[in-house]
């Protein structure tokens, strides 16, 4: 088990949102304020870790013909737990995230990791994978939320940070702004990934 490698994959080289392009729907929809992003990111992190562990532990008992249905049942169980917990203890966040918490059931990141990773690896490795991928998702969400809330409303976590003379660019918090800023973020990420790839191949060429 290589924690460092998994963390690097989750954050950068296999980042669920920016490289695997999974779970975009929720990212686009709820990234209008940082508090939303934090709530959503941590919920996904918890559900992803739990479902990874459970599916990895159950992998010998799940018949491969009906595995998707089984994964969904497991994931839906954890999502319901988180949904009820949020409604009980953080009702304001539960309200602003609305339908997107139940929709985590069909979030591609969780199903993708279940199918691609935890059904083939040990319980411990799956737990680490869930945490790393969850952190990668949360970080991207936070970057996007900070950008959109700062420019679109002039606030951070609901507190006014931009000077009063700043006119908020309304479009950034509208759906159009979500698509534009996510696209730009992916473009920047790809630019740096390609650059480091070029560097690596040059190094290899020099060594050979």
């Amino acid at each position, binding site marked *: 088990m290589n924690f460092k490698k998994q963390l690097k994959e989750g954050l950068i080289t296999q980042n669920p949102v920016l490289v695997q392009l999974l779970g975009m729907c929720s990212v686009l929809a709820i990234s209008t304020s940082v508090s939303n992003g934090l709530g959503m990111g941590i919920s996904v992190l918890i559900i992803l870790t739990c479902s990874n562990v459970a599916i990895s532990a159950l992998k010998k008992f799940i018949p491969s013909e009906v595995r998707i249905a089984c994964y969904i049942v497991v994931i839906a169980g954890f999502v319901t737990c988180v949904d009820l917990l949020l409604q009980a203890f953080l009702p304001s966040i539960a309200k602003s995230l609305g339908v997107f918490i139940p929709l985590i059931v069909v979030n591609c990141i969780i199903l993708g990791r279940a199918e691609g990773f935890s059904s083939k690896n040990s319980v411990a490795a799956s737990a680490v994978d869930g945490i790393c991928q969850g952190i990668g998702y949360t970080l991207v969400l936070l970057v996007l939320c900070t950008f959109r809330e700062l420019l679109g409303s002039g606030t951070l976590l609901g507190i006014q940070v931009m000077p009063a003379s700043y*006119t908020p*660019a*309304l*479009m*950034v918090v*509208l759906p*159009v*702004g979500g698509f*534009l800023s996510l696209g730009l973020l992916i*473009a920047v990420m790809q630019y740096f990934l390609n650059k480091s790839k070029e560097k690596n191949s040059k190094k290899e060429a020099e060594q050979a």
Partner: protein
Amino acid sequence: MTDYKNLKLIATSSPHIREKTNTTTIMRDVCIALLPALAIAVWNWGVRPLILTVVSVVACVGFEWLYRKAMKKTNTVGDMSAVVTGILLAFVCPVYLPYWMIVVGAFFAIVVAKQLYGGIGKNFVNPALIGRAALLGCYASAMTTWAAPMVKAPLGSTVDAATAATPMAIMKSGDFAALTSTYSLADMFIGRIGGSIGEVSAVMLLLGGAYLVARKVINWHTPAAYILTVAVVTFIFPKGNDPLQWMLYNVLGGGLMLGAIFMATDYATSPVTKKGQLIFGLGCGLLTVMIRYFGSYPEGVCYSILVMNCTTWLIDKYVKPQRFGVSKKEAAK
């Protein structure tokens, strides 16, 4: 007698006849064609529209230069296309727009709509209109505050400046009698009306369009199809007793002339064939009238051209000129 021994044969590949026309000369012609409309804006509102236009041009050229420099690409600032985008962007913005906002619009026009897709000729939507759409999305109130006509606009803060409704806004409110009493047809034609910097004067825009057609920079097909479609549809379905008057106000008001002559004819974002251009103009005209009649915005030129820009590939795919030497039956196969 020709001295065949010393005659040099210079072999070059076709084309053998060359025009001096290139992107720079075309763009310069468009700039010249836009000047009369700018003159009317200065006559209408004083120096502010001129400064706004200069700021927009400088911002557009600056962003283009910066992006090409940062991405280490060949610099295309010299072709003057960014200058045209800058002028057009200012022309579709209100006179009282704060100067820094038009810089934001220039960023969207040049970087997002043009350079991210590969620069001149590769953008699929009109950059200036994307700049306007972005500004309208970001700063809706500033983009819908219109200066009153024939009032010198203050150069600095415009908080207390005189505002007026545009003909299109009055039309949208349903009070056509108020429109005809506020602005006469002559006002509409010359440009003594409220509106964005470059759109008010139908006569000056037509003058510029005639210059471009005479210089063979644009075909008459797109603008004619566009304006005629709007004219015919509004004449057939008037809101009021006088179809002719309703039609004339619809044709002269709003951004129709500016859009039809200078935006819908953009090379990169409109169809190549003349038949395709007719279809393109027809589509723009229908959408414009639809938005004016049924949409929530008073004016639909900007969005109708943007929507039709997205269909250009389709029109170009299905409206192809017949290949030379192939019969219609064979071509159909």
